[in-house]
């Protein structure tokens, strides 16, 4: 799978981008077929192992993921997937990546963006890049979207989404400062909004322990049905809620005039529009849902 990724790196088609810039994309490093790890630190072995075991189990049996609108994910070229976010150890990210892998006619790797915090925390720092996580730096997103023409998944709510409590479920937090829109505009990549239902019930957080958070140096320490009383393993103690992932029609960003990212009002309004689309879709999906556990 990582091999495919490197191959498409070399493909580097322009994908409707303005040909004004001198194209450095042709100078990206070539493919080294002997390697099992990409330049981003993504490991074919680790990712493959997790994919065949944990992800497969969660996707098929535990969450019984239903996917709609997979055709909205482009088969080639960079695209930014933007989703709502929930859960202390969020199960939505790997399930979206798995959905693209399983349901898409041209399966492609998805790069998950994560907080810089994880790069500095032992263990996470080692494991997360291996399964395709990349620190959410604008330069990283730009390189993936524009230079390497990859799929990137962002959660503009960031930790505001994952630390929100069960009582606030499915109510989207602020979408950052619109940085994700700017990144997509600079790369001329479409934004694909994604609505996920199920993650909030799979890993609900009932309270946040501020003191423990400060003592451990973690981003947050929530009270969940299984954590902290079952120990660290409890962090991944998901309830078997039914997952439904809906990919929505892409929002083009390459026809908004010259250097649209300079227009902060436009950036904000696109960000707002994407957020409103996902929120409306979530309410729609919740209205249709008959049972949290059976869909």
């Amino acid at each position, binding site marked *: 799978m990582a091999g495919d990724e490197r191959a498409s790196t070399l493909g580097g088609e322009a994908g409707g981008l303005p040909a004004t810039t001198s194209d450095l994309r042709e*100078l990206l*490093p070539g493919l080294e077929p002997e390697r099992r790890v990409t330049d981003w*630190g993504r490991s074919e072995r680790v990712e493959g192992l997790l994919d065949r075991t944990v992800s497969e189990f969660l996707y098929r049996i535990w969450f019984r993921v239903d996917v709609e609108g997979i055709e909205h994910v482009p088969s080639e070229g960079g695209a930014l997937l933007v989703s709502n976010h929930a859960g202390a150890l969020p199960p939505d990210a790997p399930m979206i990546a798995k959905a693209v892998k399983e349901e898409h006619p041209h399966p492609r790797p998805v790069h998950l963006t994560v907080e810089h915090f994880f790069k500095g925390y032992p263990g996470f720092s080692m494991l997360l*890049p291996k399964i395709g996580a990349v620190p959410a730096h604008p*330069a990283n997103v730009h390189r993936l979207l524009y230079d390497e023409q990859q799929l990137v998944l962002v959660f503009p709510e960031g930790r505001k989404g994952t630390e929100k409590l069960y009582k606030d479920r499915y109510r989207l937090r602020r979408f950052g400062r619109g940085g994700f829109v700017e990144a997509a505009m600079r790369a001329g990549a479409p934004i694909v909004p994604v609505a996920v239902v199920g993650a909030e019930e799979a890993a609900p957080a009932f309270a946040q322990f501020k003191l423990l958070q400060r003592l451990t140096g973690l981003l947050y320490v929530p009270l969940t049905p299984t954590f902290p009383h079952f120990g660290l393993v409890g962090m991944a103690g998901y309830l078997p809620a039914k997952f439904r992932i809906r990919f929505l029609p892409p929002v083009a960003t390459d026809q908004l005039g010259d250097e649209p990212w300079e227009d902060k009002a436009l950036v904000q309004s696109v960000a707002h529009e994407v957020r409103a689309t996902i929120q409306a879709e979530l309410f729609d999906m919740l209205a249709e849902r008959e049972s949290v556990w059976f869909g």
Partner: protein
Amino acid sequence: MPSKRILITGLSTFWGGRLAQALERDPEVETVIGVDRRPPKVELARTEYVRVADRRSLIRRIVEAAEIDTVVDTRMVVDSIVTGRRVAHENNVIGTMNVLAACGGPDSPVRKVVFKSSAHVYGAEQDDPAYFTESMRRRHPPRTWLERDIVEAEDAVAEFAARHPDRTVTALRFANSLGRGVRSAPMELLGLPAIPAILGFDPRVQVLHRDDLAGCLEHAVRHDLDGPYNCAADGVLVLSEVASLLGKPLAPVLPPWGTGAAAAAVRQVGIRLPPEQLNLLRFGRALDNRRFKATGYRFRYTTRETVLALRREQRLEPFVDRRAAYRYEEEVEEFLRRSPSVRAASQAPADEPPANRPPGSTGYDGLRAEELMRLLPSLDRSDLEALREHEAGRAGRATVVGAIDRLLAAQR
């Protein structure tokens, strides 16, 4: 303008010597002069060595007397195991200032300065991008004295470039280089029976083969590159991958918290683990080398190939006789360079004979007009243009210039 009269500072460094060897093979280059405190460690055919440190007034006298057009500054200490803090500061900050001052001034013959810098200018931090481009500045102040000095030296170079817009000022930011003869902390750490690591971290690693380092310097001398450039091999490995390529286990002996104190303890048992390497072991660092590649340079080794080459060298290590190394003997070198009994052609090893050039000549200037005329039809357009400029600027022989003009007109 092609560089013809070149001064290399830091001739005794590995890359200074390698660069001099490469340049003196080229008949287009008229003069190569190397300065350093210590004598060169490699055999040189026509490079002249002057034993002088980075004193401004002395270098300036050499620059002016020899009409140096290009100065290549390879003195920079980029690893704190090489020398002490005070010496490194003297060399990197004060020395750079002096070398730049010797190249400055409105009447200076110097047209180009190539400066060997280091990727340490970027540092390595938690919130760094996965690839640094030349336009990025570090977001945190330098953590170690070595980084502080390198940042200060580069600032001085940038300031020099701003004050002299008519000169080409190149700063090459090199990733850690590997290969026999390179003395650095990464070389020592990778030479250990197990590769030390910080528990819970597997940083991204990018290096540069020593041959590419010399190649990058030579490329910068032969082309006019303005501004900073990243020089690092293609491909980024993770540390565990490096260890397995070297056939060694990874030893996560450093704790994630209190790493600095643990490193101090490790230093007590004789493993040199300098502070500027600690953040690299934690967060890693990679450079975007495409700006340099866009100037036409192709790296001969990827990061993976560099590590594999190192492994071959490590296997050979026990069998290599270190004492067989070249030793500089001033009298012998002087004799070889100056005595009329020495046949210059036999000295210069012509490994890579430049194309389109008559053998045995010392450049176009050594040719008579008739010889040159016979040669002209075999040259292509760009060569003709270069030659015309050269001829017009030097000998200015009307027959030659006329013949070139006719050929150019015919080709148009």
